[in-house]
């Protein structure tokens, strides 16, 4: 279905909506009205509107409220796979009541949608249209090479707001920066309205090269999805695999587990190499070794410089180049003996390390919803321990949500507080918390002191249940 022709055949229609050759693009790289009109006519059938219910979290209590919202969707396969921006899913809550509106005016048709699992390396989501058996949909085909040049003009098609009846609109922008490392990232030169987030991006040659995105993915330097604060183009090769093989529980879980070494690192800059009297060849300087990690077990020490990992030379001299090490570690198998070359006090050393599976992160941590007192708690995960700089002896569960008007709310408890003891019962795990709550519920005391850590300090909250 793909073509390398300049006249991109980017709309396929199962319904045979043919596409005439696009008119020539103006020399300057901007788009002529005739070009824009023809592109819009061609692309309109693949743009859809997603109406859904999202859960919005209160910063204060961590409680969620449901909200009706919408997003721009792009049909990416004839069997009704829709791609949209990653904000459709926040934290653990999947969107619900998804309705997909395809077509406009008299051609408008509405379907149920099913949310698929969100990939973790690019901030997009996928929804499957629940069409009739065998029903085919018009869909977009992306250029396999998504290269864009600095200053190149791009064209996007999106949807206007509700007051404008979700009319389709077009927008032109230019590429304001091309960032080469750790992977090519294109920045758009000006703000993008909400209805264009996830919109198809067409280059000056008329090819659909990607979609509008907002957040950097881990491969771009962030562990979590981090708002870049700048509109970007997610070029097609980043998500092509998910169109080929849509992300479901099965496909994603079949992936290799993410490996973990348990260090924080910084690059061996030339200055640092000079200071330590090491060759100015770059490397990975271990700045922190996480307690209980594979790195600690292998004897890696703070100040060691890794020069080779599993046979791959490590030559990081800049912070951005550390990402290469990060990526390599993630993709290295779990349980295998990995040869590591390092420098310790200037002396070359060879060690072997066995990586473990990355510890569960807060996002995926076990959660327990307790209705009596109004507390939702999560297990304390390694990432939270590091983020909050928790002492090792701090064992407990962290409050994720406090139900408005609940006994916990009345006692002043709030998200982020770590419960160490509930009543007279020490709490170190979710199971212990659940057991403690159950014992307190049986005993029905008039007051329940809860010993907690909040920030650097500990103290008590007093719950005053009204059992009747």
């Amino acid at each position: 279905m793909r073509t390398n022709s300049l006249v991109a055949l980017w709309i396929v229609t199962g319904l045979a909506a043919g596409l005439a050759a696009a008119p020539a693009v103006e020399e300057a790289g901007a788009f002529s009205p005739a070009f824009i009109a023809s592109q819009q006519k061609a692309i309109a059938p693949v743009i859809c509107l997603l109406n859904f219910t999202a859960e919005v979290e209160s910063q204060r209590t961590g409680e969620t409220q449901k909200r009706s919202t919408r997003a721009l969707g792009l049909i990416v396969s004839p069997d009704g796979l829709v791609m949209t921006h990653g904000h459709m899913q926040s934290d653990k809550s999947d969107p619900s009541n998804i309705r997909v509106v395809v077509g406009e005016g008299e051609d408008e048709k509405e379907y149920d949608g099913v949310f698929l699992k969100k990939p973790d390396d690019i901030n997009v989501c996928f929804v499957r249209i629940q069409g009739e058996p065998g029903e085919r949909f018009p869909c977009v085909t992306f250029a396999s090479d998504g290269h864009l040049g600095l200053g190149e003009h791009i064209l996007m098609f999106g949807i206007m707001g509700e007051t404008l009846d979700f009319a389709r609109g077009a927008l032109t922008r230019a590429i304001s920066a091309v960032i080469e490392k750790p992977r090519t990232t294109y920045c758009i030169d000006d703000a993008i309205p909400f209805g264009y987030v996830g919109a198809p991006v067409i280059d000056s040659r008329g090819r659909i090269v990607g979609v509008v995105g907002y957040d950097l993915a881990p491969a771009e330097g962030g562990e979590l999805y981090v708002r870049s604060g700048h509109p970007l183009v997610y070029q097609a090769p980043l998500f092509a695999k998910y169109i080929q093989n849509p992300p479901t529980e099965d496909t994603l879980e079949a992936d290799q587990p993410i490996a973990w070494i348990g260090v924080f690192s910084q690059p061996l800059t030339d200055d640092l190499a000079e200071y330590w009297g090491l060759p100015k060849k770059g490397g990975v300087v271990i700045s922190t070794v996480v307690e209980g990690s594979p790195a600690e077990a292998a004897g890696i020490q703070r100040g060691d410089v890794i020069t080779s990992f599993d046979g791959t030379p490590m030559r990081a001299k800049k912070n951005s180049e550390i990402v290469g090490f990060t990526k390599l570690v993630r993709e290295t198998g779990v349980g295998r003996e990995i040869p590591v070359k390092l420098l310790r006090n200037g002396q070359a050393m060879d060690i072997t390390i066995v990586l473990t599976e990355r510890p569960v992160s807060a996002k995926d941590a076990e959660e327990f919803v307790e209705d009596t007192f109004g507390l939702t708690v999560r297990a304390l995960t390694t990432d939270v321990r590091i983020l909050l700089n928790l002492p090792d002896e701090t064992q407990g569960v962290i409050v994720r949500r406090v139900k408005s008007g609940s006994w916990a709310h009345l006692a002043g408890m709030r998200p982020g507080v770590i419960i160490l003891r509930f009543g007279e019962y020490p709490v170190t795990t979710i199971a212990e918390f659940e057991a403690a709550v159950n014992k307190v519920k049986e005993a029905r005391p008039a007051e329940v002191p809860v010993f907690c850590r909040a920030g650097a300090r500990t103290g008590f909250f007093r719950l005053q249940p009204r059992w009747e």
Partner: protein
Amino acid sequence: MRASMKWLAPLALAAAGCATMGGPGEHAVIRAKNKVIPSLVHIRPVKESFASGQKQEYVVEGSGFIISPDGYVVTNEHVAGDSTQVRCVLYNRDEIDAEVVGTDRYTDIAVLKLKVDETQLPAAELGHSAHIEPGQTVLALGSPHGLSRSISKGIVSVTDRYLGEEGPRPAPYNTWIQTDAAINPGNSGGPLVNLKGEVIGINTRKLSGADNVGFAIPVNAAREVIGAIIEHGHVPRSWIGVRMQEMTSKTDDPSQRGVVVADVDPLGPAAAAGFAPGDVIIAVNGEPVHARFEEDLPVVLKRVADLPIGSPATFTVRRGEETQDIAVVTMEESDYKGEEVEFAEWGFTAADLTPAIVQAARLPSSRGLVIAGVEVGTVAAASGLRQGDIVLSVDGQEIANLAEFQERYDAINAAANRLVLLDVKRGALTRFELLKLEPGAENGDEAAGEVILDEEDSEEPNGEQPDEDE
């Protein structure tokens, strides 16, 4: 106490009613004002700030009042503390410089001495804050927004508001007089007076975003602090490293007496003596202590602070069903803000560690110093050093405190070293920060520009996660 308040409250209300109708109330206000206002002082200190990474001076305006004919003046620590010079304008418009005799951050009190030989200055009369009642008419005198010689009128709203020891300005040792007399920036340090013209409080804080919710330090709490400052230059207090909570944080049972141990500083004497969170202290040196509500806490906290420094004290503690005596040797309480120094050649300011910082940063000892600020465009900024970083060693050598760091700094600068390595703790992480000094050169644009770019590369977009954790 509470019963007597019920009796007196209607009287106070009646007095307030008279005041609003004019007549005798108005005369009383004017009489009180006339009595105290000659002692009123408009204060303009030049203060030092280190937050931007360099020592910077700025001028603030506040209020104060003369308490002795030879020229002692009381104001707030947040007005006159950390100042290099203090200019005062008396009520008769005389402009006189003053020296800072001493300050106490925990009660926010400073004592100044006017640089005059005169011994007949008009001193305000200090009253007794234990005798005040909610509803009683009070006057606030001072320089709101710099407008000197201003007076506003209101009533005492609450006599014993507890503002706690949390936040950037902990106030563990006193409750506060809450008043609806208008208090604005510039009123700080001015007197709150009763209709007898006696000072009953020092106007210090207001609740921002609220209407006429101001707070004054009760004069009874201030009197002792002022005396200690005049005698010692500061207020010596004992410290055992325990944070306390009121009894109602655990139980509303009024028969349960004492004060709850909420937190124990792992490096403090109480931890060494075996205190644990959840313990209930019921007596100190055999004398019972009790804080049922949070506003009862300052009395207990002060009891501990008033213990002889460096001497053993016996705490009777209830743990579960058992009662035991625990002996603790007290230490002197340190300031909650360490001394700050500018290291101009390297482009940052730093402060000594305090127990609170040591505990929050989970340091194994109180050795090190904390970066107070990093100046933009300097080698420190270029290295990636940040405000709040804790420096543990320089060129591999541990440093104990600011003074030791100063020695290392001077020696390195004298030796004209090109590179200096700092071992830094930032949250749970440690980092190596290499300062690239250019001996003989100013902190030039070239060097800074080059490395700042590098730093921007390194930043996570949200600036929170400095490294990759894998």
